């Protein structure tokens, strides 16, 4: 972004990568896949790179409002400094925070989750399916992220994207408004769960496996980690894959 600004350009969208998208080894692949799609379509976009910092979501959900607001205010200063109007992100937590919680602190942007953005590209014919990746006809289930679904009522966009791949989309017993959390939200990602009889991601993975799907599609970095761990725990990593929807589209495009 700094480079673009220096040369006086202003991008159409800012791609907010998020911490998982920047640092998580598995999830970096999703960032790369999404960027490849953006490049292929020729969308003018920028990323903040090293100027991006945590939105503050995990701090806020863990109760540390100070830390959240410190993060939020400095991020807003950067975003406003570049005069950003439209933000796209692959992380539902970043999406929720920037869209719903930054306005109270002076950050007003049009914020879109990458599922909605991909759906728009497909609807506008900017992305047409190439049949790569071998998804056609496969049974695929979609795991709703709480922060995309219940928190922000985005249920259909990721499903439309998956359906565009001509797959057989199978729903889990608990889906959409009743979708079961992967267990990572509310800053649970960063600590061991409280004592109980089971881990939440195992409960959810079992439900996903019950559908008989050969892949679990997600739209959230934490869900990706939790479901991948669940699949490993069940020793099914050889026959059941966990993908972010952007990866599926990139694969289809042969990117």
């Amino acid at each position, binding site marked *: 972004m700094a480079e673009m600004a220096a040369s006086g350009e202003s991008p159409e969208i800012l791609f907010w990568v998020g911490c998982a998208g*920047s640092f998580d080894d598995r999830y970096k692949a999703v960032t790369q896949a999404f960027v490849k799609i953006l490049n292929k379509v020729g969308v003018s976009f920028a990323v903040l*790179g090293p100027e991006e910092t*945590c939105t503050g979501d995990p701090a806020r959900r863990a109760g540390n409002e100070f830390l959240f*607001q410190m993060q939020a*205010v400095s991020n807003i200063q950067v975003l406003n400094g570049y005069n950003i109007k439209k933000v796209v992100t692959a992380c539902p937590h970043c999406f929720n925070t920037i869209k719903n919680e930054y306005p109270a602190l002076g950050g007003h942007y049009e914020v879109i989750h990458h599922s909605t953005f991909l759906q728009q590209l497909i609807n506008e014919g900017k992305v047409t399916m190439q049949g790569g990746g071998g998804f056609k006809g496969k049974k695929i289930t979609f795991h709703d992220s709480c922060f995309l679904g*219940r928190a922000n009522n985005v249920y259909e966009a990721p499903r439309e994207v998956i359906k565009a791949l001509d797959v057989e989309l199978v729903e889990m017993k608990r889906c959409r408004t*009743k979708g079961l959390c992967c267990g990572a939200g509310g800053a649970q990602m960063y600590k061991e769960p409280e004592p109980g009889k089971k*881990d*939440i991601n195992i409960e959810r993975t079992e439900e996903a496996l019950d559908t008989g799907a050969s892949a679990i599609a997600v739209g959230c970095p934490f869900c990706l980690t939790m479901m991948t761990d669940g699949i490993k725990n069940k020793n099914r990593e050889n026959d059941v894959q966990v993908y972010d929807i952007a990866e599926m589209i990139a694969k289809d495009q042969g990117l």
Partner: protein
Amino acid sequence: MSILSRLIFLLIFIIAGYILYRRVSFLRRAILLGKESDRTDNPSERLKVMGLVAFGQKKMFKRIVPAILHLFLYIGFIIINLEILEFVIDGLSGQHRFFAPFTGTWYVVALNIFEFLAVGTLVASIIFLIRRNAIAIKRFTARELKGWPGLDANIILMAEITLMIAILVMNATDQALADKGFGYYTQIDGLFFSSLIKPLFIDMGAETLFIIERVAWWFHIIGILAFAVYVTYSKHLHIFLAFPNVYYSNLKPKGQMDNMEAVTNEVNMMLGLPANTPEGEAPAEIARFGAKDVNDLSWVNVLNAFSCTECGRCTDQCPANMTGKLLSPRKIMMDTRDRAEEVAISIDKGGPGLEDGKSLLGDYITKEEIFACTSCNACVEACPVNIDPLAIIIEMRRYIAMEESGTPQQWNAMFQNIETSFSPWKFSPSDRFNWADKLKAEETK
């Protein structure tokens, strides 16, 4: 009816009214222990939500069987209470079936509707009792329902059953008396359900029948008044509170947490930015960050607690609860209500109130419960009366994090990572853009 019985009737009414008045003003005080919170925006949207969710029971219909059974109780409650109007007029004026002479066939139609609903309520109550006790559905056997809450549910169902039986017996004996041409009883042709049980009574003498009819009549009206009083001491407060509760519910996206203005001011000061408060106005003194006790919550949170039906739909959907963690969003609501009630009673008695050495967090709700929440909003989504247990959980986390620094070790480490390397994980901020290296390498290939 004699003057004496009319006076007794009036007296009973006044007593019930007085008890109700005292209880309602008590509840008001208890709810207003909570802090100010403005939920008066967008009244038209609020009315719409109230119409759909409270009046229309929209969210109940996610589960069709209990929804239909509950609908019987609900409509039964509303419609049968119309009948009370006639009871009151009869009771005070000493007449019998005041409306009958001039409403003609409408009267028969109305009475049949009442009887139909009475039977529906009867059946629904019996099925609910079976579901609760014999089938022992999971959400009705949780730890927070042991003791009084479980008993409360059963009492009200039994009360419904006896009240409904009283209506049917009253109508049946009334008609049996009319058949005999006794006293002021007049024939009302075509009462379907009560005529089914009339054969039980026709062999009885007119005197006995008269006594049964009067007993059923008094039982019904006193029963309803007692019910009205009882409701205000029970989870059945939701019959009334569901309406304001839904009206004042959160209209914003569920993922959005409220901004703490007090913190914003401090953050702005630290960063050398202008404060949000208008010039010359000192920022309001904040007693406490987050919530330790009921008075730290907003009045909407406390209203939520008193509106809770204890149905457990929230807990049933809670990922933490279903995997065996202590957290139960229903228990959060019940604890909040119990604490608010305890404090309000104490204040009324001139006792220590909030300063009784106890607090909601600690004595009712444990940190272990609070920490287990994934903020997934499943409880909020599931609640048929738009209660928000998550809001209370978050306020308590704020208290734990900011007043006590009592968050789990791993969270503290996460906080520290964000402070020092601007990411919840310990990575160097300068590596943030490294993901692009692979793409750049591919491009140059």
